[in-house]
Each structure stands twice: as C-alpha cells, then as structure tokens.
C-alpha cells in the first residue's frame, strides 16, 4: 500500500508493535507474543498427535514392544511449550496489572485535584466575571496581544505553532492526560456540591452513567456550558442520496476498509446480494468535517461529537439512521459498521441503539470507549495510543470486542508537521491498518478474516453482486 501524502517526509512506517486485547479479556499482549503462543500451542497439538501415534504403534497386535520412554520424551516437549505459553500469559497479565494500577492511581489523583482545585478555580473565575470583569477582559486582551501577529493573524500563529510542534499533542502520555481530564470533570462537580476531595477521588464515587466513570457527565456539562454562549445546539437533519453505483469487489483487509470510509460524503452503504440469500450491508462512516462549536448546516461537527460522547442523539447519528433506512436496511438484515473518528463514534451508537442487527464492526480512532457493546460482535476497535481523540471519551471501558492499539510514531522519529494531530489522521491509521493486515496472531487474523468474509463470500455465490449508495446529510433549522 502507498504511503499517505501527508507523511511524505517519513519514508516508512515508524509505528510501534500492535497491542492486542482479545475480546472478553482486559489482558494486553503484543501481536508477536500472541502469535508466538499460537505457534507453541500448535507444537503442543503436534506432540499430542505424535503421542497418539506412538501409543497406536505400541498397541499393534503381534507388534514389537516399543521402548517405554518414547511417550515421556514427547510429553517433555509438549510440557515445555505449555510452560512457555503460561509464562507469556503471566507476563501479559503482569504488564496489564501494572498498567491498570498506575492508571488507577493517576485517575484517583486527578479526581482528587479536580474536586479540590476545580471549585476554587471556577469560583475565582465566577468572581472575576461578576465583580471584576474589566480585569478579566484586560488579562484576556493582554494574552491575545502577546501572541505574534503572523501572516494568518494571531489564530494562524497558534495553528502554525501547533502544526510545527505536533509532538506536544502526539504521545501516549498526552492521550492519558486527556483521558484523565475527561473522567475528572464530574469530580469538579462533586467538589462544587461540597463532597470532600478525598471522597470524590475514591473509585466508583462518580457522577457516572452505566459505569462510564463520569465521561458522559463531562460531555453533558460541556453542552450545558456551551449552550450559554449559543454553542452545541442540536438541530433536525435531512439526508439525500448522492449516488448509486455498482461495486466490483469487496474490501479485503483493514487498510482497504479504512480506505473505503468516505471523506467527502458522510455515509457510504454497500449492499451485498446473492441468489436466495437475504441482503447484507456494510455501512462506512466518515470523520468530523468541521470543529466549529457553532452548528451550521454540516452535521459532522463538534456538536455531534459532544452529543455522541454524552450519549445523546447527535445530528450525525440521525443522518446515519436515515441513510440506512433509505438504503432499505431492515431491522433483521445483517450489518457491519466501519467508521473513522466521529464515524467510529456514530458506528458504535448504531450498535448500542439495538435498533439494527449489527453483527460486526471496525472502528478507527473512535472516541467511544464509554459506549457498552453487546456480546457476539466480531471485528475490532482500532486506536493509536498517541492519538488523544479517542481519549476524549475516557478510557476504553468495553472489552466485548477485540481492541487493537499501536503507537503511530514510536521511537525517536518526530511526527510529520503537514497536518495537526498526525496520529489521528488517516495516514496514522493507514499504517496501523497495514500492520493489522500483516498481524500473525490468530486473535487478529480471525477477526480481520471475519470482516473480510462478511462481504466477499456473497460475491462468490451465484448471483453475487453489490451496490454502493453515497449519502450526504444536512442540518436544517432548529
């Protein structure tokens, strides 16, 4: 696969190893470790089969009595494989426990500080607004004036600075910081209500919904505060089909699925049909189009992001539902959803709604770790650990689907400066998708294969055919 254009300065993939959390567990391993364990397990099965054959040889009537140390020799090899596999498992569990302990301590400290300092800071701000607005305005103006006035104005200077220094927001540490902030906003509220900071810091003492550690509360607070200034106002939406065309091949591999996620049109739906079979659908959902907090006619906006994380009913989600209905998807039809960034968030909202028969998913960089998934989904959620956008929804809380993580810019290679937040750009995820397609562990290969087969197997059946629909949504009125 070709290198993304924005990564022109980086000749090859500089990502770290794939970190895998198989569905139904919280234990993190590397793909290489899991693949090594797979190979050892295969060798164990091979030894077991050989034991069976030696015993069979020894049981032949009138046969030569075989030495009785043959089976123990084979058993020793099998036991050595098993012992190594167990050691791998223990190493992965130990790594996970250590990470979980560190994160829990950080989260408690963040909650404590938020509950202790948050109310004081908000109180000071409120006093400034009420009693000394002149000081506040003067301070803001002085700060603004201190920014050099470049060719693109002061905002352009800020943008250029962030573009020139992507490392400031492109690291696992910054992503962790963002995650800690999102789960600490509710602790500020607890502090404002008079709850002592040490109580607010206790795990489980949260203004949470469905065990989300207060993430939705933080998003709801953002909506409430923003609405005071006319921001984050939801609207009705409409959807229009832009085109209908035949699809000649189904995507194979994660990179091809990522490449099919639309940029220009928000929703791409592929309908797969075969003679005598019920139709199947793959729904691809594109990323955020505008980061303005003021809603215009584009539903793929910041308002949809915040509403989505808050578990409300974002416009971008309603566009998807309207498009799915227009494409003829009935509640029982099998659907696979695939989305990038906001598209991944909307994909998870489609799944969580329970209104559609979603059987599989693949999301890239979705801020949706606080959305509970149903059992039985195949596919995977993919995140770059140095991408802070998924961290806006807090830590990954749901583990019913395979989780694949990877540092997009590992080691000493500086991130590219062509686009902001490079680990969240398509290029960063294209490299990760390529790494997934090259993965050797059964945990990854099986899920990637199931996503492939969902679409490809219909095209191999008699009468197999596929049609693509592209949709565009629009916000209308209030």
């Amino acid at each position: 696969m070709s290198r993304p254009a924005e990564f022109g300065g980086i000749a090859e993939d500089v990502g770290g190893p794939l970190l895998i959390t198989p569905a139904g567990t919280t234990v993190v391993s590397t793909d290489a470790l899991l693949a090594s364990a797979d190979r050892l397990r295969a060798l164990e099965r091979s030894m077991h089969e050989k034991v069976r054959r030696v015993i069979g040889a020894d049981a032949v009537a009138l046969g030569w009595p075989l030495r009785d140390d043959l089976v123990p020799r084979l058993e020793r090899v099998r036991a050595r494989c098993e012992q190594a596999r167990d050691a791998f498992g223990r190493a992965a569990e130990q790594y996970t426990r250590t990470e979980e302990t560190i994160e829990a301590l950080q989260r408690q400290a963040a909650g404590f500080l938020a509950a202790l300092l948050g109310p004081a800071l908000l109180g000071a701000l409120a006093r400034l607004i009420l009693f000394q607005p002149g000081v506040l305005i003067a301070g803001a103006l002085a700060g603004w004036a201190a920014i050099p006035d470049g060719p693109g104005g002061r905002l352009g200077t800020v943008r250029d600075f962030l573009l020139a220094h992507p490392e400031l927001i492109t690291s696992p540490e910054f992503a962790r910081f963002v995650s800690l902030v999102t789960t600490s906003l509710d602790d500020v509220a607890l502090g404002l209500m008079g709850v002592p900071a040490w109580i607010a810091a206790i795990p489980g003492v949260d203004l949470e919904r469905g065990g989300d550690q207060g993430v939705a509360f933080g998003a709801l607070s953002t909506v409430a505060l923003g609405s005071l200034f006319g921001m984050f106002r939801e609207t009705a939406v409409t959807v229009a089909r832009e085109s209908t065309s035949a699809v000649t091949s189904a995507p194979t591999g994660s990179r091809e699925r990522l490449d099919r996620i639309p940029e220009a049109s928000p929703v791409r739906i592929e309908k797969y049909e075969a003679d005598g079979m019920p139709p199947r659908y793959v729904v691809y959902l594109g990323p955020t189009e505008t980061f303005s907090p003021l809603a215009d006619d584009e539903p793929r906006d910041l308002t949809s992001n915040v509403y989505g994380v808050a578990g409300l009913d974002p416009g971008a989600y309603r566009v998807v539902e309207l498009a799915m209905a227009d494409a003829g998807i009935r509640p029982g039809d099998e659907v696979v959803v695939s989305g990038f960034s906001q598209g991944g968030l909307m994909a998870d909202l489609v799944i969580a709604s329970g209104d559609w028969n979603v059987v599989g998913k693949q999301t890239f960089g979705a801020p949706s770790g606080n959305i509970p998934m149903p059992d039985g989904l195949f596919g995977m959620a993919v995140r770059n650990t140095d991408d802070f956008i998924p961290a806006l929804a807090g830590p990954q809380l749901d583990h019913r689907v395979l989780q694949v993580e990877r540092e997009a810019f590992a080691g000493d290679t500086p991130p590219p400066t062509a686009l902001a937040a490079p680990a969240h750009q398509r290029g960063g995820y294209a490299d990760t998708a390529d790494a997934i397609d090259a993965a050797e562990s059964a945990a990854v290969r099986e899920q990637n294969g199931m996503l492939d087969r969902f679409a490809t197997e219909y095209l191999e059946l008699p009468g197999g055919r596929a049609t693509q629909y592209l949709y565009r949504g629009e916000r209308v009125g209030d």
Partner: protein
Amino acid sequence: MPPVPVDPAALRAAYERQLAFLVPVVDELEREAIAPSPLLDDDWRGPAAEAAHELLRDLRAGLRDAADAIDDEVRRLRHRIAELM
C-alpha cells in the same frame, strides 16, 4: 509349555504397521527440530531474551532427542523385518 509359533508373515505385517505409525513421526520431529523459531521477534531484551533463547534451545534439543529415540525403534523394526525375510 513351549511358545506358540507365530506366522512370520503376520509378524512382518505387524512390524510394518508399526513402521507406518512411527516413520512419519520421526520425519515430522526432524523437520520441527530445524524449523524457524516459534517465537516471533518481539524485541526480547535482558532476562526475557535469555529465557527465549533457552526455550528455543530446549525445544530443539527435546525434538531431536524424541526423533532420535523413535528413529532407534524404527531401525530396530526394520532390522526385525529384514530378519524375517
């Protein structure tokens, strides 16, 4: 009581059936003993690298040891079959 005489053809058939079980086992063990490491490169370092190296050494030695032991029995069976001809 003197031992019951056994038909040499039946004995030979029995030994050949045993060979049919064992020869593929030896072949596979020999292949597995020289196959690439089952451990994928995962930047093993320090004690982990030493443990990985030790595992590979143990596996290869164990596979060769089992192959040699079963091969001994294969040669012994072939010798018996030759004696019966």
